[in-house]
């Protein structure tokens, strides 16, 4: 049993090692994504700093600092969750683009192991990017984390990662079914989640029907909980109302996403869609 688990870990690590090697070879693109992440996060932070100028009213320093942190937590948490969703969602599209999809799917690696390996690689990448972006942003914008409860924030990020891994696996199946439009569909799902999850604003400002959507988005709970943890130092017991819904999404979406992926893989093998050229 232990030997079998070790064997599967070794197989999963193949994908982690491959992704690290690809990141080194595509280093220029990695820098592009990092710069893009820093610039967009900074742009959002400056909106917070500009609150008095934009509103035309008096806003005290503490309120501005809180507003900046509110926006930064949203943008960086979304960046973290977004990288997970995008990278896992692009598993098929990326292999097809490289021309390796047939080789990977012909190899004797259980699909669960394959996808877990890709998830592990994605988590490393998402974490590294998010920390780097936060580090760069703090060089330009004062960030007050004196009240932060880091443990609560880390737990929420982990729960959010679980939920987005499940959603990412499900969306990775789209390009198997629709070779050209599948990835575009995944991006639309991601955009809608961004809109309804209160990344830059409280969901209470949304129309009622969008607020309904926000209740089924795990990002709503993760980002709201992250704000409570990092801005107000909320501890885990008090964050339970934000943790459990995201946890439920993760616990449900990962097995459901896997089942969907395996079913769609079989459909692709029946219809001849599992091809490098799509």
């Amino acid at each position: 049993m232990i030997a079998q688990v070790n064997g599967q870990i070794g197989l999963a690590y193949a994908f982690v090692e491959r992704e690290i090697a690809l990141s080194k070879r595509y280093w220029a693109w990695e820098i592009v994504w990092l710069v893009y992440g820093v610039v967009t996060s900074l742009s959002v932070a400056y909106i917070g700093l500009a609150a008095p100028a934009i509103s035309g009213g008096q806003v005290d320093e503490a309120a501005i600092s809180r507003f900046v942190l509110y926006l930064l937590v949203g943008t960086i948490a979304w960046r973290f969750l977004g990288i997970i969703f995008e990278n896992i969602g692009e598993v098929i599209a990326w292999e097809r683009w490289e021309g390796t999809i047939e080789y990977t799917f012909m190899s004797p690696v259980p699909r669960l192991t394959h996808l877990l390996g890709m998830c592990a690689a994605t988590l490393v990448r998402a974490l590294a990017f998010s920390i780097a972006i936060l580090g760069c942003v703090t060089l330009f914008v004062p960030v007050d984390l004196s009240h932060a409860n880091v443990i609560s924030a880390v737990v929420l990020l982990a729960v959010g990662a679980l939920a987005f891994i499940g959603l990412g696996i499900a969306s990775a199946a789209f390009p198997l079914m629709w070779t050209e439009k599948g990835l575009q569909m995944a991006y639309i799902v991601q955009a809608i989640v961004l809109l309804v999850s209160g990344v830059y604003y409280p969901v209470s400002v949304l129309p009622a029907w969008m607020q309904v959507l926000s209740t089924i988005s795990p990002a709503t709970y993760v980002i709201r909980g992250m704000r409570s943890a990092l801005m107000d130092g909320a501890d885990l017991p008090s964050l339970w109302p934000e943790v459990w819904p995201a946890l439920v999404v993760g616990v449900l979406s990962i097995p459901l996403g896997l089942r969907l992926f395996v079913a769609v893989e079989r459909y692709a093998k029946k219809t001849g869609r599992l091809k490098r050229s799509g």
Partner: protein
Amino acid sequence: MAIEIATRPREPDVMTTRDALVATSVSKTFKTEKSPRRAVDGVSLRVRRGEIYGLLGANGSGKSTLIRMFSTLLIPDQGAVRVFDRDVQHDELAVKRLINRVSVEASFFKKLSAMENLVYAGRLYGVAPDDARTKAHEILRRLGIAEDRLNEPLEKLSRGMQQKIAIARAFLTAPMLLLLDEPTTGLDIRSKREVQTFVQDLRLEHDATIVLTTHDLDEAERLSDRVGIIHEGRLVAEGTSDELRARYGASALEEVFMTATGRRLEDADEPERAK
């Protein structure tokens, strides 16, 4: 010099099974915008262990569709495929452990080096990285690829070299059944000869069964113990080159092809139909 290919422990019945591949009444139809197209039509064939079986046919004749069904990438509409007595659908993972495939286009991460690609492939098949590196060095030296090129991104190597590395990658994983899907198409004459010689040598030195698809008559005759001619999705003739020539009263395989299919191979070689 013999190449030391890693041998992996196999189940006892794999080592004693006489037939490496058995396809029974296999058919596959694809839906197209105009009408359904039957790519493979009731093909039955048997490849014996240790044999090189050449599937000869024009572009679009169904060779690659058959190979994709043998390699678990495509599910037949009808019929069954067994690899070392394992069903490709119901025992997919076990079949995957026994096979490898080299396609007409080398499937690599082109930004990664030959060595990175080979170590990655080795990991997928349970070959330890150090072993993979050692074996890769041996195989690539045999194929005439200089050591200093092993760490260059693959996109900088010629197509011939990429194809040799693809074959090296397949042998690195010690497959019991190797599916070579037009491995020399598009290569220059020298590279083609080198790849053909490599395949012959490996077969002589190691316990591998090879199914080779080609639309090159010389290649089919030179490499194959038996040849199957596939035309419009059907296996229309099968046997050793000598048997086929005798059966069709022909002096060359080309004549056999013409008689069996009613067309010259060059004429039948129209652009490959969408699969």
